[in-house]
């Protein structure tokens, strides 16, 4: 790279010109940046198709859920969600809240967008469950694995989503797949953490008793640890759904449609009402899913006997 050599500032000169308020330029970072950019371009050129076909099942899942939700008549979806809310609490309060939220979505002409949003959220959650629970189990069994995965999770949660949106959009092109992947990256970590936490905090006395009866690790995992950690795991799933919903505005920027797009349009056209109602629509969906998963968690805790008997 000859042109690169010309641009390079000799280190000695850099230090002599150093002012108090500027961090000294000890190494030249340009080649590094260029290598990363070139590397990514190379990956896109050579492996782009491979990545795309690898992500195809994800797209199929999302499509299937979306088609199903849109094809189902609105009253049936309402009835199903209200019914689930009733099963989760056995009282009229939560079903009434769920009904009101869905009614709001319908009357504000947000129904179809809400269904697309739900599809994105549900498929992200399902994928996160499939990936996160095994990783959480693995983490709970080995301190080394925990030591490696915890910083990765921290990174996934703190890295601004746009940072990894750029490469994913470059690889997959704008559309639903990068939106889904970005949502999964952001929403999966709490489930991994809570699975790990839930499994490790199972009463050691119960685990010891199980061991004393000659159980193998698989029997302990499925017979004792997972059932007892289920409320915590369910709290993780609740977190995942909430974080997936929080991503929809960003996801809509790269072409996922959904409610977030209405928010973006609202900003673009300075239409406060459009942004407001779409935003409230996201809140309504969040309320529905948050309350339903939480109630199931509480019910489960009561059944397992971790909560005090009522």
């Amino acid at each position: 790279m000859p042109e690169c050599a010309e641009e390079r500032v000799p280190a000695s000169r850099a230090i002599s010109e150093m002012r108090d308020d500027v961090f000294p330029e000890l190494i030249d970072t340009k080649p590094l940046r260029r290598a990363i950019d070139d590397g990514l371009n190379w990956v896109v050129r050579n492996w782009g198709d491979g990545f795309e076909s690898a992500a195809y099942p994800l797209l199929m899942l999302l499509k299937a859920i979306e088609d199903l939700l849109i094809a189902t008549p609105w009253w049936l979806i309402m009835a199903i969600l209200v019914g689930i809310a009733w099963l989760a609490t056995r009282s009229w309060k939560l079903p009434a809240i769920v009904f009101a939220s869905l009614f709001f979505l319908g009357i504000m002409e947000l129904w179809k967008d809400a269904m697309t949003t739900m599809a994105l959220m549900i498929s992200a959650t399902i994928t996160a469950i499939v990936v996160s629970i095994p990783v959480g189990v693995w983490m709970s069994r080995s301190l080394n694995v925990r030591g490696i995965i915890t910083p990765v999770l921290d990174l996934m949660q703190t890295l601004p989503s746009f940072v990894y949106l750029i490469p994913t959009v470059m690889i997959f092109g704008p559309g639903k797949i990068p939106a889904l992947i970005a949502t999964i990256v952001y929403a999966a970590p709490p489930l991994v953490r809570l699975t790990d936490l839930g499994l490790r905090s199972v009463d050691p006395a119960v685990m010891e008793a199980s061991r004393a009866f000659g159980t193998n690790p698989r029997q302990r995992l499925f017979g004792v640890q997972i059932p007892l950690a289920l409320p915590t795991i369910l709290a993780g799933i609740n977190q995942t759904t909430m974080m997936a919903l929080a991503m929809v505005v960003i996801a809509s920027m790269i072409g996922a449609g959904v409610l977030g797009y209405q928010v973006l349009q609202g900003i673009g056209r300075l239409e406060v009402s459009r942004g407001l109602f779409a935003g409230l629509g996201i809140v309504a969906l969040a309320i529905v899913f948050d309350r339903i998963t939480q109630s199931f968690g509480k019910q489960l805790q009561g059944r397992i006997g971790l909560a005090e008997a009522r």
Partner: protein
Amino acid sequence: MNAMAQMIASATDTEDLAIAMRGVTKIFGDAPAEALALLQSGKSKADVQAETNHVVGLDDVSLDIAKGQIFVVMGLSGSGKSTLIRHVNRLIEPTAGEIVVNGSDVLKMSLDQLRTYRRTQVAMVFQKFGLLPHRSVINNVAYGLEVRGVPKAERLKEAAKWIEIVGLSGYEQSRPRQLSGGQQQRVGLARALALDTEIILMDEAFSALDPLIRSGMQDQLIELQKSLGKTILFITHDFDEALKIGNRIAVLKDGAVQQVGAPEDIVLRPANEHIEEFVREVNKARAIHVRSIMERGEHERCEASVSKDARCEDVLPLFAEHQWVGVLDDTGRQIGRVTAKQIIKALARYTPGIN
């Protein structure tokens, strides 16, 4: 020295024993080898801990537990008794020593053999019950059988039987948290008994229960042991409990065995000051059997008499009316007699040199 003598005396007949422990030592820490060397060179538990920061759990423990006994290991908290019982089913690996159960060396077992051994030969009852909170009582009792691979119908039938024996009929579908502590421990006991193993390990099984319920459970355990003939290794910190249920008692202190013997041996001839302290607190009238202090042999038949299983407290009221009280064996034959004087001597405070 004591351990060595025992080792030589019983090395030949490990086959007849349910559990034989030989020189079992456990040191907790990252590098136990160094601490073990120090311990074997004669340093005390406190010295080893100060020098190497390793905790001595067990110090050269050798025990012979015959089949069909209730063998009680008694010690204060921190004496290593819970560590000891966990060596028998190898929930804890010893640093050194040998453990032979029913003729097979537990420490040489592969992981697979160990699981089979735990499923079929030793069942355990825990101080904190260790019940599975998400399962009903009957499924908790059937748990061991389920792990063993017994078909569902059969294991539920077996579980129902044991639930009835421990007196919990009607609670089959309850969850453990709906039961009282005593009831929960009955579930724990039924779960262990349902496995029908020759050996049952009980780790402070009754310590979490209140006194009346505890006494009832002790009676039930003695009854069950009589009818089933199991070998029970029972851990307790309660000397009264040890005297009541134990055929033999080992006293543990700082991970080392202080004395092993029948309850009367320990009460009448405590081996050292530590044990004497326990003995001072105990109700000797309940601990000492009349037969161990009676005048043996053929005497003229006494007007009042008690069975040979009677304890001192049972004969005391009889002395109001009678000079001598006879002791009868199971067939009703008089095998000896006691006077109030003999009883008083046995109950008097232990003073070295007089007994």
